[in-house]
């Protein structure tokens, strides 16, 4: 009786249930699944918007690995991800833990840390290019007070990476707010035993808070990695500011140090009109992101479930 009733309830919701998700299903097929499959196909062809695809086998892939600028863009992006992700996660944890203390004006501090991350990237990058200007920029003006000489932040390939990392650390607001909410969600009972043992604040942070919010940290790491591999707008704006129009020249900043993977993909597709090759790049990126996400979620089972 009970089962029969439940079954009829199931079927009663099935038609409206499917009808209501239908927009997403259609959108997914049109704007995600079909493009992903087509981009796999295009990656084995030579084509552009004005030329029909011609099958070329693995040529796009083998050409890419003989392309020095491709290798450069891979290295630039990997270095950026490898440094900016730990740096932003770490700073996010520090700011969140500080905000979690019983402090006055928490909402104001939280707002100050959060706002940069919601500002339009184009506008905030322009502000950074101005701040990092070698001659009139305020960072060098500030550093000169401490006797540091003029640094060409965005014009010297030794400093461009550091500049991008600094800019990324300015945008940790979302991560901070998420970590703060996660820390505040940690049940108070968990701390009681440690209090009895007379554990210090740092000890509690490391042994209770961190393991409890590990799954949130992991999720933010994955999002940060995906974001890092899609890093585009900032370098586009910086190179435009340095050169006027960048697209025709397919410019990559000093010594190509700003040539990030998505920017080179964009050049291949829309400057060189080699959309087959760009599709191969898209698939390589898709696989890299997929593999990293998979490895992280699998291996993390060990450290996330420790709690």
């Amino acid at each position: 009786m009970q089962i029969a009733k439940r079954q009829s309830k199931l079927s009663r919701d099935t038609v409206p249930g499917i009808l209501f998700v239908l927009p997403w299903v259609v959108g997914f097929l049109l704007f995600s699944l079909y493009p992903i499959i087509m981009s796999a196909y295009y990656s084995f062809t030579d084509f552009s918007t004005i030329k029909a695809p011609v099958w070329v086998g693995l040529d796009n892939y083998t050409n890419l690995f003989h392309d020095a600028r491709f290798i450069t863009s891979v290295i630039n992006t990997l270095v950026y991800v490898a440094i900016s992700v730990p740096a932003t996660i770490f700073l996010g944890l520090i700011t969140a833990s500080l905000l979690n203390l019983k402090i006055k004006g928490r909402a104001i501090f939280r707002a100050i840390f959060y706002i940069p991350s919601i500002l339009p990237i184009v506008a905030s990058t322009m502000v950074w290019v101005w701040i990092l200007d070698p001659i009139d920029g305020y960072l060098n003006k500030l550093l000169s007070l401490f006797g540091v000489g003029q640094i060409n932040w965005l014009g010297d390939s030794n400093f461009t990476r550091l500049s991008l990392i600094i800019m990324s650390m300015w945008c940790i607001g979302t991560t901070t707010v998420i970590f703060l909410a996660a820390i505040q969600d940690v049940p108070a009972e968990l701390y009681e035993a440690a209090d009895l043992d007379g554990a210090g604040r740092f000890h509690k942070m490391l042994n209770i808070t961190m393991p409890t919010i590990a799954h949130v940290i992991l999720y933010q790491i994955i999002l940060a990695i995906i974001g890092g591999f899609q890093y585009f707008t900032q370098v586009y704006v910086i190179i435009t500011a340095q050169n006027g129009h960048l697209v025709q020249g397919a410019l990559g900043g000093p010594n190509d140090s700003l040539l990030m993977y998505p920017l080179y993909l964009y050049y291949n597709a829309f400057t060189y009109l080699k959309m087959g090759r760009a599709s191969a790049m898209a698939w390589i990126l898709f696989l890299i992101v997929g593999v990293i996400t998979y490895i992280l979620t699998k291996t993390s089972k060990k450290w996330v479930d420790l709690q």
Partner: protein
Amino acid sequence: MKQVSRIVVKYLPYFVLILLALIFIFPIVIMVSTSFKSMKEAFSNNSGLFPTSFYIDNYKNVFATIPFFQYLGNTMYVTIMNVIGTLIVTPMIAYSLAKLKWRGRDVVFSIIVASMLIPYTATMIPLYKIWANVNLVGTFWPLIIPAFFGYPFYIILLRQFMLSIPDELLEAARIDGCGAFSRFLKIVIPLSKPGLATITIFAFMNTYSDFLAPLLYANSADHYTLSLGLQSFMNEHSVDWTSLMAAATLFMIPIILLFLFAQKYFIEGISTSGLK
């Protein structure tokens, strides 16, 4: 000695927080202050942090150099259409995933979560080809139409909000003879107002600031959004920094106002999305 260390422990967090806050606010202060400086002052060696007098010609110059209001109008048109699309489809998708029981629902939900991991660059070229085939490159449509099919992030966020609506309420309505659609309209929608406010804000903010999609599709000058229009201040020979900072300030104002008036929804939405 002990007392000194206690004072240090008590005030050290404030010291660090204030230092960090100053660093975080520094770029915004520089932007606004540069926007009120004359070119001569901004580029002088001993120009201080704050302008010596409020020089508003940079703002006049913004309106003289670019059709600011046209770009703002384009941006707002695309943004509002995205908000409308999001508000029409997201609630019903989220409702189906949160409150209707049907076979395959959990599979659909996992696909939605997984699809958030697809990098935009991976679908960019075929999408461009699709829009080129239907002759819509150069129009606003490629920036608007996808919103009417629901974005994963907003669906997941709103579903999370809807999960907290008590099932008893919906069950009672069902017994009173309410079908799935009228339960949606009469109970779920009114109780989801904070969630709806949150996705409205995120849809607004993300579309307003977007760069890559307008770069690909809104690529004729009369279709520029502000993200693209701001590039006009940068040309090969020089960048008009003072006017550019004025334009950047104007560009940011709506987002900062939105944040100040709806801070609660920002923080709530962000926290919910991260905790899953």
